[in-house]
């Protein structure tokens, strides 16, 4: 526990005791004018407040202090911690039970609230930071592309190499920022697909074209079945999801190994598969790879990533009524990602070619 957390807890305990003292005074004054049977219940107030605001330990302190104060001040024999009346013993036992339960509930409520607050804060931060980053990045990518074209740089291999690095890295950064934007959009606004008929070949080609620059030196095999039916889906969302899968395949497999992109009809659905011969997946990774912010401990130290990509992919595809599954024979055995989309009913075979 950090030092400030210890300080906060200590302050909580002190305040809890103060509250008990306050409540005791209140009851003492009240008893001068009214006859109160179950004064003990008032001692629940500090317990609840402490549980909600400061956590378990201050709540327990408030409970014990409350019992002690009641026994000492109000239950005969007065100014003695012992309690003689059996009714009042029942009161005390009840108080202990109620205090423990409310304390626990308070602590749970407090934790949930804190979690929600930190989630919101993180989302808001991510959203505004990525907006702020997007526009300077457009200037960087554009400026680097102008430099790459200028005669002075083109003549110089070393300089043009550096310019290529600026472009490549800023484009990767852009991908990460877009992922963050997508993630905040998914959690805040949800995904609203714009349905239309589309040729699955166009989706495969479009997704690959987006990643082409990263795949220039890779052997990529295309195996798209003949005469695939059109699918009714949101092409932009699926393209973006598929692009992420292609990027992962490129990222997690050695440069000399091939990547296969296939598409076929499979039981009323279109199945698009991306297969690589890379690092593969352990059973644990296969189970958790689509969880938001999950990064495998095998790669967390040496491959950059946010742990958002596959979570976004699955969210986008789910919004289109499809599924994404990962499979692997094991570590270093390669990975196959399978994306399945419902075809929906085919439009009539009337093709409008009646001229």
């Amino acid at each position, binding site marked *: 526990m950090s030092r400030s957390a210890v300080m906060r807890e200590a302050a909580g305990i002190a305040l809890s005791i103060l509250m008990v003292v306050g409540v005791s005074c209140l009851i003492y004054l009240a008893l001068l004018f009214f006859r109160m049977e179950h004064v003990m219940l008032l001692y629940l107030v500090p317990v609840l407040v402490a549980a909600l605001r400061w956590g378990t330990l201050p709540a327990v302190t408030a409970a014990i202090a409350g019992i002690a104060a009641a026994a000492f001040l109000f239950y005969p024999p007065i100014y003695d911690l012992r309690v003689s009346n059996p009714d009042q013993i029942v009161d005390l036992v009840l108080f202990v039970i109620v205090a423990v339960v409310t304390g626990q509930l308070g602590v749970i409520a407090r934790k949930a609230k804190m979690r929600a607050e930190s989630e919101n804060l993180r989302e808001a931060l991510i959203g505004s930071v990525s907006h702020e980053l*997007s*526009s*300077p*990045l*457009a*200037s*960087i*990518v*554009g*400026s680097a*592309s*102008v430099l*790459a*074209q*200028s005669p002075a740089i083109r003549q110089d291999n070393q300089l043009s190499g550096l310019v290529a690095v600026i*472009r490549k890295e*800023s*484009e990767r950064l*852009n991908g990460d920022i*877009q992922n963050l934007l997508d993630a905040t959009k998914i959690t805040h606004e949800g995904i609203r697909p*714009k349905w*239309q*008929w*589309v*040729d699955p*070949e*166009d*989706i495969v*080609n*479009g997704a690959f*074209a987006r990643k*082409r*620059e990263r795949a220039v030196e890779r052997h990529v095999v*295309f195996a*798209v079945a003949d005469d695939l039916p*059109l699918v009714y889906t*949101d*092409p*932009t969302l699926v*393209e973006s999801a598929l692009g992420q899968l292609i990027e992962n395949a490129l990222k997690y497999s050695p440069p000399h190994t091939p990547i296969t992109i296939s598409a076929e009809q499979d039981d009323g659905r279109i199945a698009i598969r991306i297969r690589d011969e890379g690092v593969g997946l352990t059973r644990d990774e296969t189970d958790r790879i689509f969880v938001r912010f999950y990064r495998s401990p095998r790669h967390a130290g040496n491959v950059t990533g946010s742990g958002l990509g596959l979570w976004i992919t699955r969210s986008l595809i789910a919004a289109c009524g499809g599924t994404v599954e990962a499979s692997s024979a094991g570590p270093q055995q390669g990975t196959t990602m399978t994306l399945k989309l419902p075809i929906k009913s085919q*439009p009539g075979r009337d*093709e*409008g*070619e009646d*001229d």
Partner: protein
Amino acid sequence: MTEIRPAVLVIDDEPQIRRFLRTGFDLEGFTVVEAGTADAGMRAATLRQVDLIVLDLNLPDIDGAQVVERVRAWSTVPIIILSVRASDEDKVRLLECGADDYVVKPFSMAELLARARAALRRQARGARGEPVVNIGPLSIDLANRAVFLGGKRIVLSPKEYQLLQVLAQHAGNVVTHNILLKEVWGTKHLHNAHYLRILVRKLRRKIEEDPKRPSLLKSELGVGYRLSGMTESD
């Protein structure tokens, strides 16, 4: 480029973007005029003859679609839109208002130049009444309704030819699904988007070396099609 120093008007509110666009266009032999607001941009466009307008979609003063409409009211000057990602509907809206093409931020100068040159060529072709459009190995003679692939004449169905003709007239630039549906089937069939997808497939089988991985008739998902002999990164 056949023109002598074509003039490009850049309308973008971000100085850093304008700066690299100015240098990039300048390097390629363009004269550059800059404006930071839509208002200033439209004034500049009326004050002097420009050959091309590069317009940012998100200007602080006037909505991009409105700027396109207002310019189109008196001029056919090619307009290229600079847009941000995830706004397919906006892109389609602007293209259907009369913009010629778009690039998505962040973009490379080469990408923008390819689009700009295609739009300028179309403008020049229209002005000179040139009947033949060449795209890679494909040659389309609009006057004689004849299509050649690698020098050999190929036979297209009337609908296939109509589709190719519209794309060829905008060679290098994107044409939206709706515009193609309207040109080939008429306004009654705007909802029959699958006609277009199937016709594109048929046409690709006749003009593409590998119809499954087209290099001429490319799809811009969610927006339209583009007939182009170049890859995106050229």
